[in-house]
């Protein structure tokens, strides 16, 4: 999504560290968004979502009481309970199991998995929030990089350039942005994506959905 298209979002935030919670509230507020509720655990998150009906949920993975993956569990449960609710998960883990489970929940749209480090890249982070809220799919570049290092089916059929393009698609970039980064024309990017979808054997469907499917195929590979 373009930055010019930004609209003020009503956000429910779940983060158990007070330091980060306060920081994120300030950061998002600065970009015109409003954190309508900030929860410190998974139960608080579910309650806050029901009370405030937000535009997007931003949650940490690891939260009380057991400090395992409660936040991710809550996110997956929320997406099952309220289809179409955009969820952005902030995580400390590069491991793809987390991202795969999150993206597998629901239809794979309006969902994002970012490393917490990313909140330091303020503008990128806020952009990711916007994209997820608008129904996009965002996977952290670091997670993508880790996956690209592997050479395994079904991605084996892709050329290095196609893998690169697929990685950028997974990060949630538009064709125009991908063209800009790779210094090629938008038409060339479109052609690459067409090839990727064909090689991954994805059924013909509306473009956005096929892109999501490609990302999922990428994560599961």
């Amino acid at each position, binding site marked *: 999504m373009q930055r010019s298209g930004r609209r003020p979002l009503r956000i429910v935030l779940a983060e158990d560290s007070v330091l980060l919670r306060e920081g994120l509230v300030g950061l998002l507020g600065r970009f015109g968004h409003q954190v309508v509720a900030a929860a410190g655990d998974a139960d608080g998150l579910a309650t806050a979502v029901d009370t405030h009906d937000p535009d997007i949920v931003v949650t940490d993975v690891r939260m009380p009481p057991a400090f395992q993956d409660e936040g991710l569990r809550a996110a997956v449960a929320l997406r099952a309970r309220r289809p179409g609710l955009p969820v952005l998960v902030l995580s400390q883990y590069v491991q793809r199991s987390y991202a795969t489970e999150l993206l597998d929940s629901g239809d794979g749209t309006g969902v994002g998995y970012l490393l917490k480090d990313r909140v*330091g890249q303020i503008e990128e982070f806020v952009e990711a929030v916007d994209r997820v809220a608008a129904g996009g799919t965002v996977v952290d570049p670091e997670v993508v990089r880790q996956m690209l290092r592997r050479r395994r089916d079904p991605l084996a059929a892709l050329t290095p350039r196609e893998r690169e393009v697929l990685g950028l698609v997974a990060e949630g970039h538009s064709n125009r942005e991908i063209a800009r980064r790779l210094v090629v024309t938008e038409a060339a990017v479109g052609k690459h994506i067409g090839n990727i979808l064909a090689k991954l054997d994805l059924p013909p469907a509306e473009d956005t959905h096929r892109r999501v499917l490609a990302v999922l195929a990428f994560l599961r590979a």
Partner: protein
Amino acid sequence: MEARTPWQALTRSDYLRTGWPWRSAAYLASGVLTGVPLLLVLLVLLGFSAVLIGLPLLLLAGVALGGLERRRLRLVDREPAADPHRVPDAPGLGAWLKTRVQEQATWRELGYAVLHATVLWPLDLLALAAGIGLPLAVAAAPVQLAVDGHEARVAKTFLVTTYPQAFGAALAGLLLLAVLLHPLAALAGARAALTRALLAPRDAELRDRIGEVTRSRARLVAAFEAERRRIERDLHDGAQQRLVALTMTLGLARLDVPPGGPLAAQLAKAHDQAGHALTELRELIHGIHPQVLTDYGLAAALADAADRSAVPVETDIDIPRLERPVESAAYFAAGEALANIGKHSGARTARLTARHTGDLLRIDVHDDGCGGADAARGTGLTGLADRVAVLDGTLTITSPPGGPTLVRVEIPCSALAAAPCA
């Protein structure tokens, strides 16, 4: 091979030239020296035990004598006899007494003490008198004659009056000594066998001790594991969150500073460095305890380790969730095997297979490298083999020079009923 006991020594032709005759004699003599005071102590304690305080002391005396006798046994038995007692469960005299009273070994020691005080030491004394005392008395005939001047009554029986007779007797005495030293050693050997039979641990007691050692090692590993988890959590909750907050603050500051100036450049640098620190800290935390192991189990953690390997790894993993210690030990063992491939093997590809069949987890890590890996040469696998062994598992390395290398981890364990792997 050197003789272990007097009995073995007796079968050798050079028996008299070895130290064994004197070791046997010393064993019997020290038996007398311990036996006499022991008899006195037991008599006194028997008197006391009428009023009950003597009983614990009697046990104590038995246990103390047991320890002493096992040490004394070393004179005539080169193989040390182990202590048959367990370590008390709790400190303090009460716990000690409770443990000892319940042990068969304690009562065997008490029985031995009574036997030693009443029968064994007089027997030792008799054997010494007959076996060494008598021949020496006969051999001392010339000395006796010299002292007396006229006549000597050898061994208080027959009379010698001339030096040739006296020296003849001396020679006979020495010959007698040489002969009698043989049954003496035989008797010392019998005494040693009796002592060992009563005071050394029985098989069952040894098994108990091994079980105890295994349990304490398992406790140690569990404590070590818990400690890693704690450190991981502390780093995650503390340093990592603060660093994230720091990069956020620096990121916000950068938005407020006019671009192009020196301050903007400095801030960008600081921001960058904080980011690198965060990445390194994340890797460090993952190395201490990979949270994916707890959240998604061994299968996901192994797949991730294969993802990260410097050498491309083909994976074939089909395992359910297993108990935490098993998952942890297996993960670190397989992870170390993968790390070694990256560091030493020169391999171009590797393969990791993990299966759980019956009640056995088996992980194979293959590579096509140059081989020659040796667990004994400190590849980090030795410690992991120990950790696997605590769970009754094994870690085997097959790595002929020239390769290929196979590291196999096998741990007996049953699948956890709930939640299959993600």
